[in-house]
């Protein structure tokens, strides 16, 4: 894991990202974690439970009144230290669909000094009655720090370059929905672009390798730094993935192509010669997509820089499931809020618990 977290990120917290909870017992079909921080400690049966629960949430979203009282009386606080529209709104809609009370705290990251003040904020939020804390922070590992203090459940809504677990879960759900047989096992999935700065890529590595996908990471060598070493060291918990700068090798016969946003603000320091050069060599165009299998899914976690990492006609093309990712995001987040509330109640799932 430490190989995936660049040094400068680890040093922000003094060490590499700490593990708050031990891996769960594997024999259970239930969700046993108190927090959702990343998917590295989540087992495949647990991910499948999330997928099944998401199916049920999709059914709720299709109702005339898409609201159920499952989390009535629970308070969900959204604490976003970093700009976000879709993730925050998605969590907010998810919590409201489950009848939770939602408190929104927007914090400008510049006004918050790291470390102690985060802990203070979390204590305050807890004192105000929050049962669940959804958090986004520019510093990798910040939600782990919050989880040490907070008595309820912490959901990581994205921390630095490190993890964005609900995005990876909704990506997996969207793939399973569209791939023949409803499974990504053995499917070639390509994540294309700025892997280095991508918490989406890192969480997807855990989810997709657990799902048995043939995972390829592709981008300029400067934006793959550290990942070759991670792959060579055995991959994610021994599960392999391939790292390449050859976009042709990556896209050939791919079943799914996920383009990542080029984060302009992170491109200082000579990582890319120019955006135009990036687009010329790694932009996802219709011609390049011809290399993939016909009907290959096109995905993007958003927000899009159309004409940079993805051509507009590809983003809105017939194979694009980008808007569906957004819809599924609400259902996946409902599932996670629900499962964490159940785990908070001290439970694990059982087939016979509905008597």
């Amino acid at each position, binding site marked *: 894991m430490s190989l995936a977290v660049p040094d400068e990120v680890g040093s922000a917290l003094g060490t590499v990202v700490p593990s708050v909870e031990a891996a769960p017992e594997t024999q259970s079909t239930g969700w046993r974690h108190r927090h959702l921080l990343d998917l590295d400690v989540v087992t495949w049966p647990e991910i499948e439970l999330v997928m099944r629960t998401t199916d049920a949430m999709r059914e709720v979203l299709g*109702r*005339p009144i898409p609201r159920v009282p499952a989390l009535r009386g629970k308070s969900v606080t959204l604490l976003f230290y970093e700009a976000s529209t879709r993730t925050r709104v998605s969590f907010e809609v998810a919590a409201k669909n489950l009848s939770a009370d939602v408190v929104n705290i927007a914090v400008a990251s510049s006004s918050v000094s790291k470390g102690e003040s985060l802990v203070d904020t979390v204590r305050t939020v807890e004192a105000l009655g929050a049962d669940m804390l959804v958090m986004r922070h520019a510093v990798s590992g910040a939600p782990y720090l919050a989880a040490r203090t907070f008595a309820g459940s912490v959901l990581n809504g994205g921390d630095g370059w490190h993890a964005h677990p609900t995005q990876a879960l909704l990506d997996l759900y969207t793939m399973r929905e569209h791939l023949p047989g409803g499974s990504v096992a053995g499917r070639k999935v390509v994540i294309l672009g700025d892997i280095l700065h991508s918490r989406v890529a890192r969480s997807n590595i855990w989810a997709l390798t657990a799902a048995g996908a043939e995972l390829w990471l592709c981008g300029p060598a400067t934006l793959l730094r550290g990942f070759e070493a991670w792959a060579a060291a055995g991959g994610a918990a021994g599960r392999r993935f391939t790292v390449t700068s050859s976009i042709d090798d990556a896209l050939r016969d791919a079943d799914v192509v996920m383009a990542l946003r080029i984060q302009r603000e992170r491109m200082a320091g000579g990582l890319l010669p120019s955006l135009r050069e990036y687009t010329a060599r790694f932009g996802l165009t219709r011609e390049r997509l011809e290399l993939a299998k016909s009907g290959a899914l096109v995905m993007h976690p958003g927000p899009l820089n159309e004409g940079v990492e993805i051509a507009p006609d590809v983003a809105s093309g017939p194979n694009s499931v980008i808007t569906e990712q957004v819809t599924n995001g609400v259902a996946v987040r409902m599932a996670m809020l629900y499962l964490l509330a159940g785990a908070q109640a001290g439970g694990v799932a059982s087939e016979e*618990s*509905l008597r």
Partner: protein
Amino acid sequence: MSSFGQPRLIMTADEIRRAVVRISHEIVEKQAGTEGLVLIGIQRRGVPLARRLAGAIAEHEGVEIPVGALDITFYRDDLSLIAQQPVVKGTALPFDLNGRTIVLADDVLYTGRTIRAAMDALVDFGRPQAIRLAVLVDRGHRELPIRADHVGKNVPTSREELVRVHLVEIDEEDGVDIERLEPATVGVAG
């Protein structure tokens, strides 16, 4: 302690079959026909029961009654009480509920909380003309003012007992048994 953990059969497969047929007649009699009727089974064992009732009605009335499935997991009021996290089984109500007479079907009627949750769920889908309740076993100990319209068998029980319905569609055999639990293992679910 040897009296614990010995399941006792209280309904055989034949008794279940006869109860289903009788209830199916009662439902039609009460409705004075089949006009506007829909059957909705509560997940999990209420669903095959609803299908069996619909099958019996089809046999003697020659009319196919729509059958739906209702998962009340999200409507339970005891997420913080039950020691186990419910697994969602799914809801499928592929028809309009407005103005219909709904017969809810479930295997065991106990505290009434499941039925309360089911009625909460149903009113989110529309405004039925009436909601009725058919259960295979009524074991008493209601905690809410709810009663069944159609009952397969009334079974006096104590709270320390567990009533288990087995249906071939789920359990590979038909039968209802009752078992006395160790006091420490008595749960609040039901």
